[in-house]
């Protein structure tokens, strides 16, 4: 913009040169005035790399939609003293290499001030590394929390989403006391799956569960039939489905067709709203799981109502999903911190995030100081049967709430923080 302005028009007259020279002199002489003024130019850019295509595509699209709402709200409220925010959505294709490249481009080429996004453990690690190297804040909205461990954590790392320990722990503490003790695991063979299984086992140890089968499947499997007979043969009381996205739906669909629901209770650490809607009531009937958010919370939580209403206004009255809400909160809290810091300066915003007590959509949250994990509540939900549904969006019933509590997290020492 500025360079093209300079070029148009006739060649500069002597007076112009003098004026420009004088102005330049003032600029050079007073950098403490000029620099901040230059930095405030242009919009606040938030890079948002998520896997728009691939097995988690439906969750990622939703995250992008919700993140945009957070940006729109920030702008509607006047931005940062008139400076607007802008969301730059990129497809990381659920590949760490792709995500690293996109993130680097976002920072170097597009001039992103903050990065928020990703939906898988390895991708998140890659994005975290790039952001740490470039000194940009990264707020992760993926469950896996390897980035919060001392080896990967830097001051730029924030984790807005729940983590497997919290989610599986909450579900385990709810289910295991009243269920049989024979527990089987179907695990997507990557960090998320194994972390979830570990969360269940830690919770289950208190109730003396016995692991009778532990079957891993490749990420994004299409057919689970080959993994199911082993689980059937082990004859468990509970089957923990430690997988995500379409994997969750497909494995549940096929397990149901094998008649396994009659033999065992099925639980999923993160019981997904989108997949439940895509799968239908029959397949999910009786399944219990955890979630960061379910839109019906609006009956009790004011911020949930406000978020739902913004989303509904743009989406023909449909409520937002659990993972969508992560996108909203992840970007929203960054912008809140920018406002409270009064600048986009990285260290100032980090300071603001560390002290922020925020309620974007589900009640009070804050980032734990040692690892920047967002301390928040987990909701235990059960899928409703067709007959009990009031409308097509009314798919879950909230059974219990595990309230925001640092005790539900792995301790700072466990994560290696000194």
């Amino acid at each position, binding site marked *: 913009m500025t360079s093209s302005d300079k070029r148009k028009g006739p060649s500069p007259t002597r007076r112009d040169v003098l004026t420009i020279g004088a102005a330049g002199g003032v600029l050079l002489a007073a950098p403490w005035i000029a620099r901040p003024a230059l930095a405030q130019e242009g919009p606040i850019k938030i890079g948002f790399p998520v896997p728009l295509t691939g097995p988690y595509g439906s969750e990622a699209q939703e995250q992008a939609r919700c993140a945009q709402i957070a940006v729109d709200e920030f702008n509607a409220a006047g931005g940062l003293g008139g400076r607007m925010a802008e969301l730059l959505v990129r497809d990381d294709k659920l590949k760490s290499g792709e995500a690293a490249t996109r993130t680097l481009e976002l920072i170097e080429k597009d001039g992103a001030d903050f990065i928020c996004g990703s939906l898988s453990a390895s991708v998140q690690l890659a994005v975290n590394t790039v952001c740490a190297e470039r000194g940009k804040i990264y707020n992760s909205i993926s469950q896996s929390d390897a980035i919060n461990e001392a080896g990967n954590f830097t001051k730029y790392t924030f984790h807005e989403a729940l983590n497997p320990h919290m989610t599986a722990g909450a579900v385990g503490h709810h289910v295991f006391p009243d269920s049989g003790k024979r527990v089987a695991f179907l695990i997507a063979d990557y960090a998320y799956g194994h972390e979830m299984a570990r969360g269940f086992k830690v919770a289950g140890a208190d109730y003396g569960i016995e692991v009778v089968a532990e079957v891993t499947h*490749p990420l994004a499997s299409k057919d689970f039939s*080959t993994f199911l007979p082993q689980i059937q043969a082990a004859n468990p009381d509970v089957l923990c489905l430690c997988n995500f996205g*379409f994997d969750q739906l497909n494995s549940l*669909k*096929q397990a149901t067709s*094998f008649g396994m629901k009659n033999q065992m209770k099925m639980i999923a650490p993160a019981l997904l709203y989108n*997949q439940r809607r*895509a799968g239908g009531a029959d397949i999910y009937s009786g399944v219990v799981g955890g979630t960061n958010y379910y839109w019906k919370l609006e009956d009790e939580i004011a911020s949930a109502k406000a978020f739902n209403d913004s989303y509904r206004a743009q989406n023909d009255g449909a409520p937002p999903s659990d993972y969508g809400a992560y996108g909203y909160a992840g970007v929203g809290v960054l912008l809140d911190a920018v406002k409270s810091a009064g600048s986009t300066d990285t260290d100032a915003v980090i300071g603001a995030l560390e002290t922020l007590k925020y309620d974007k959509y589900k009640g009070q949250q804050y980032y734990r100081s040692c690892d920047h994990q967002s301390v928040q509540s987990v909701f235990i939900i059960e899928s409703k049967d067709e007959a009990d549904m009031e409308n097509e969006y009314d798919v879950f019933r909230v059974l219990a709430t595990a309230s925001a509590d640092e005790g539900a997290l792995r301790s700072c020492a466990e994560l290696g923080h000194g």
Partner: protein
Amino acid sequence: MTLNLFLLQLFTGVALGSVFVLLAIGLSLIFGLLTVVNFAHGAFYMVGAYVGVFLLGLTGNFWVALILVPFVVGAMGLVVERFLVRPLYGRGIDYPLLLTFGLGLVLVELVRIVFGLEGVPFDVPDALQGAVNIGIGWFPLYRLFLIAVTIALVVGLWLFLEKTSFGLIIRAGARDPEIMRVLGVDISRVWLMVFGIGTGLAGVAGVLSAPMTSVIPDMGTSVLVEAFVVTVVGGMGSLLGAVVAGLMVGIIISMTALFYPELADLAMFILMAAVLLVRPQGLFGRKGLMG
């Protein structure tokens, strides 16, 4: 490890293989007769599932959808052959390959625009719900049905090709299209039909898979890879090869899942590499078809 578990796992592999068989015979048929490497096959499979969803919503009847889908998708195949593939005959094998590759991307994108990225529910029809005890353990009734349909289709196709006069023309046309032209046979009509049948089979495979997996625009992508592996292992252009290799791949995937799940994804590629080392034309393939 009990014998029953082993047998059940084997049987699971057969059921899994039958989807591969359905996919591969369509692909193999088109290649064997037209020497068109159809990269849009996975997309037609996906379209089959979505047409099934649409027809199911319209009629509420799975059986009507199952019967109509191959005709709808097959008709699309006819249009594609007539207006897109036909102008490329005689221009070398890579032209139709690139065309169908692009067509596949376009179809996926169109479906994404119309139906969205979210999965669409598709339940197992009531009559086929639940599991039955097959003596060695419980097995989904729907997968038994799938095996039966595959057998019926393969036998039907074989009878059509071997015992009818149109089948005779198709087989002769595959050997030497020039002579057939000289004999006064409209060979382009034959090719049109074959392409339609091949895509129709992909459509059937799609609608049959819909109740087992999620109906999403990307569903054809991974399936295309599997279909090609099966076709290459069995021999490009060989129906018998497609059947044998389809079942083989299904069983191998199933057995690896039981004994060494880390390799479940790779097993079929290892099989393919091994077969290609020993028999570059595939198990039942003719030599020099790609030339």
